């Protein structure tokens, strides 16, 4: 029953009912733009961090004073990327933020969040969650929709990690905090914001690693192809029975 319920949620393209789109065009385009910008932001972020790989808590911190964490990285000032790394970081921050805003508005108004990311009431059970955490192979029907662990992870990335990394980024700006001082003070200060920015990056990197590992485990082509073309497979499949139910 539950399977039938979420199968109905999958939009069927008029043109090709036997090969329904798995992901809408907006989801696919914003996914890849975000993927590229996260990659560039990570590289340029590392370039920025290497100028001073030390983290502090509070408003201030410097090499001559106490730190929260001394990262096991060298202080690198003279790398070619050092300056341009900052230009690159802010350029792609705009790409990422504008794409995220567009995706957020789309998700809200198209009910993408509610339909595809909000866990169904029935799925929020420890039995199901632990079953997915043990990476039990999904049935073909189950694979057509996100499971509860996927939904919770994606919601966490979209509504916790990305807002947090944008917030902590803005909290490091003396011009922005001149207008919204609480952006920094709520976090404990400008250096706290920098430290949280770093750990949020770590969380996003961990998510990406697990996400990519899961894609490989589930089948790289069968999961990546729909995120590029929207279609489940390159060739239309032989009509599976559940599509007839849909009646297109």
């Amino acid at each position, binding site marked *: 029953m539950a399977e039938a319920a979420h199968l109905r949620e999958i939009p069927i393209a008029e043109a090709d009912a036997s090969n329904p789109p798995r992901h809408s065009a907006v989801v696919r385009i914003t996914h890849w733009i975000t993927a590229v910008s996260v990659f560039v932001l990570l590289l340029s972020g590392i370039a*920025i*961090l290497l*100028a*001073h790989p*030390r983290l502090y808590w509070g*408003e*201030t*911190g*410097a*090499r*001559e*004073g106490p730190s929260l964490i001394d990262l096991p990285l060298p202080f690198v*000032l003279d790398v070619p990327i*050092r*300056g*341009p*790394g*900052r*230009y*690159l970081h*802010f*350029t*792609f*921050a*705009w*790409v990422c933020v504008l794409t995220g805003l567009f995706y957020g508005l789309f998700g809200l108004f198209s009910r993408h969040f509610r339909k595809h990311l909000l866990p169904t009431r029935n799925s929020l059970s420890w039995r199901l969650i632990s079953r997915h955490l043990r990476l039990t192979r999904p049935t073909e029907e189950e694979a057509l929709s996100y499971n509860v662990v996927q939904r919770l992870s994606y919601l966490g990335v979209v509504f916790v990690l990305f807002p947090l990394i944008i917030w902590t980024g803005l909290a*490091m*700006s*003396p*011009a*922005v*905090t*001149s*207008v919204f*001082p609480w952006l*920094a*003070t709520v976090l404990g200060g*400008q*250096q706290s914001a*920098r430290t949280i920015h770093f750990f949020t990056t770590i969380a996003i990197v961990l998510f990406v690693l697990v996400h990519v590992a899961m894609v490989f485990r589930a089948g790289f082509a069968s999961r990546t192809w729909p995120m590029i073309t929207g279609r489940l497979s390159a060739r239309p499949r032989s009509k599976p029975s559940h599509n007839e139910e849909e009646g297109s």
Partner: protein
Amino acid sequence: MSVLLTRRKLITTGLAAAAGASGLGVAAYLAKRYNLIPPDHGGIYGVGETLTYAAHRVLTSGHSLAREFDRSQISKVIPVNGKHPEVDAYQRLLAGGFADWKLTIDGLVDRPSSFSVADLKRFPSHSQITHQACEEGWSFIAEWRGARLSDVLHSVGVQPQAKWVFFFTFDKWWDSLDIPDALHPQTFLAYGMNGQEMPLDHGAPVRLKVARQLGYKSLKYLSRITVTDTMKNIGDGLGSGSPGAGYSWYAGI
């Protein structure tokens, strides 16, 4: 049906494209009209820089003040970044206790003038306890004392067509501010720090303090200020030595 749909799609797409194009045109016009375009707006990073600068100028248009702190929050350790200038001109002034130091202000002003430290101290004295962050990542809080740049500029009569205020120093750095930041109440010609005369390491005798931008905009060892309506013919035309080295001209971040 399909023909209708195609036509409707075509019209919608066309209208959206036209709206987008004219929207960009209007945005470009408004950005130019309201001085929302930074000098380093060209090249691949120019779009992001322009978005940042324009967004900040709109956001801070109510003359927002940088966060100020309590005296107890002043940093115990104040990092020193870079050496003081080695040029003879500076060394001679240093040897004389800066008695002969003069800050020249010229360009688009009614009365080009030079100010000694004592002259600057005759302007109303202001102080601020603000945060200064280096683009590298470290930061400190200090108390800065000085004259407001706006008071000094008003005394020499800035002409209405002025758009930029350039700063030159005894070391290799040079930079510029737009009028909103030059006239901002927390932009100081600072001659004191933490209750003392400006220390040698921090820009003696007078440094710039720009509270709403990163530390590299607060130039040390000032020698000359020039008011202009253009960035052309000054250095590489990017308003500062920073963009050439890969750092944005606008550092409100």
